[in-house]
């Protein structure tokens, strides 16, 4: 019987890890697409200001 009043008697990390280990039953979780890249990349890019890259006219 464990005496939990004296936790230093045990390697609690190891014990908790062993007794608490999750069942080994992996299930895939494919990442969902939420950002509509074509729209933001396409339409919004037209609205994005590009002052820094404007070519100078004239001289």
């Amino acid at each position, binding site marked *: 019987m464990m005496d939990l*009043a004296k936790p230093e008697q045990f390697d609690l990390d190891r014990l908790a890890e062993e007794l608490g*280990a*999750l069942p080994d039953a*992996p*299930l895939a979780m*494919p*990442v*969902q697409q*939420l950002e509509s890249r074509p729209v933001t990349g396409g339409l919004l890019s037209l609205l994005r200001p590009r002052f820094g890259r404007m070519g100078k006219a004239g001289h």
Partner: protein
Amino acid sequence: MGAADAPQTRVYVTRTLTLTASLLAAGLGFIVFLQFGASDGFDAFDVLRAVLIFASTFWLAWGAFTALAGLTTRPPAVPRDAGPIRAMTAVLVPVYNEDPVATFARIAAMDASLRATGFGERFHFAILSDTRNDEVAARERIWFLRLLADTHGEGRMFYRRRTSNKGRKAGNIEDFIKRAGAAYKYAIILDADSLMEGATMVEMVRRMEAAPDLGLLQTLPTIIRAKSRFGRTMQFAGSFYSPIFARGLAMMQGRTGPFWGHNAIVRMHAFAESCALPELSGKPPFGGHILSHDYVEAALLARAGWTVRVDDDLTGSYEEAPENIIDHAKRDRRWCQGNLQHSRLLLAPGLKAWSRFVFLQGILAYIAPGFWLAFLAASIAAPLFAPPIDYFPIEYWPFPVIPVSQVSKALGLAVGIGGLLFLPKMLILLDAALRGRTRRFGGTIRALQSTLTELLFSSITAPIFLMFQTRSVLQVLRGADGGWPAQTRGDGTLSFGDAWAASHWIVTTGGVVLVMAQWLSPQLVPWLLPVALPMALAPVIIAWSSRASTSALFTVETELAAAPVMLLADRTLTRWQDFEADATAA
């Protein structure tokens, strides 16, 4: 029309009626205010204020008509099945720097409650620790072993701590599913302060079994164990009004119901296939991890064709709530950031229209107080921009034309807006009295007293919340990330000094509002007092409302008779706290 189409038709009818009624109320507010504002000459400020009244009134009306919709119906009849359940269910308890003694005592109580149903072996508990504090984590390990020993839970109870808390709570659940999800057909997702009767969990599994298209079933958790004046007021409001609001919402949501992040059951493979959240491009607060993940997960399940439902008739589902206004505001700050982040997802591909509308509603919930504030500011500043009154508007007419007073219109508008706030709650009281529901709240007279006091209290605290919410919105808009603070639980008594430190800026704002109004629009001062006075008294209200409540007002069912699982949790907690005190003394 087939039988299956009938509920969906009812959903569309409810949506249309609620939306139309809200737009009509908002439109009426707009027109009445325009007439009032134009009485001393028409200018752009009148239009601006009328638009702000439209937006604010729409939001209030939406809430009011949702409650009215909820009053028109009863919970749908769900077929009862008393047979055995064979599916395995994981009960997930994510923890983050919580007190392990209290949290694990609740788990022991739920386990005992489940075993009493005879189906304890069909449920496993997984404590999913994202705790960053090593000392708290060390206590978690000790108390996990104690939990195992007390419940004979080896093989049924699991504990794992993540080394990195990537994705926060959503990432924590995702990590569990990726490692162990295939072992279970369902997962009941809880919060650290959640508590559920075993019979409720069994019933949730049965309802999932009975509806193979059901991806997520949300319960309506009841707030319990509130001790402070603020906490007990919220507890009463949550228990008395929320079921009606939730039912109204459910009538409009149909198959696209809500997920509130906890006290819900999900179909494991549906959740796994549909709900892995990406990290949004860019930095927080709008980029990075999705904070209010629950709304998004509900939307993703619906996108994948699963039904998401809230069953407000499921009792025995509990949670705790903040005990003071400051803790409430801190939690609200996190929700505000999460909801505003949803603006990135409004155009996400494939979402149901209602899911997009839910995102929009969540955003509006935080922006709408700003409409009121802008309206007040515009009203105070309006005289600066108003044209002088023209007493001789008719050419060659020798007598002055005195403008007709439109104060009655302003009064009418104020009464209308007040009605939108108060009428639904009074109707809920009437409904509860007629159906005998008030018995659970100390009787009809006590429920009436509690409702009236709650209306007064919520009116007084509304300007304080308005300020906190507006500050949260401004913080998010200027790019400040609120982080992921652990929730404060337990006794939340605040000294006046604590309250002052957290709200002195509200006092200053209230003072500035009154001074500006006195200077620019003295006639507005009486109208502004209900807003400005609570702001000026914010620290007093915050400190006072955080004190322990001994009043018989705000009595709720769980105070009259604690639920069985609450008693189980109390017994375990007392035993464990005594044990910890003895161990510390030794």
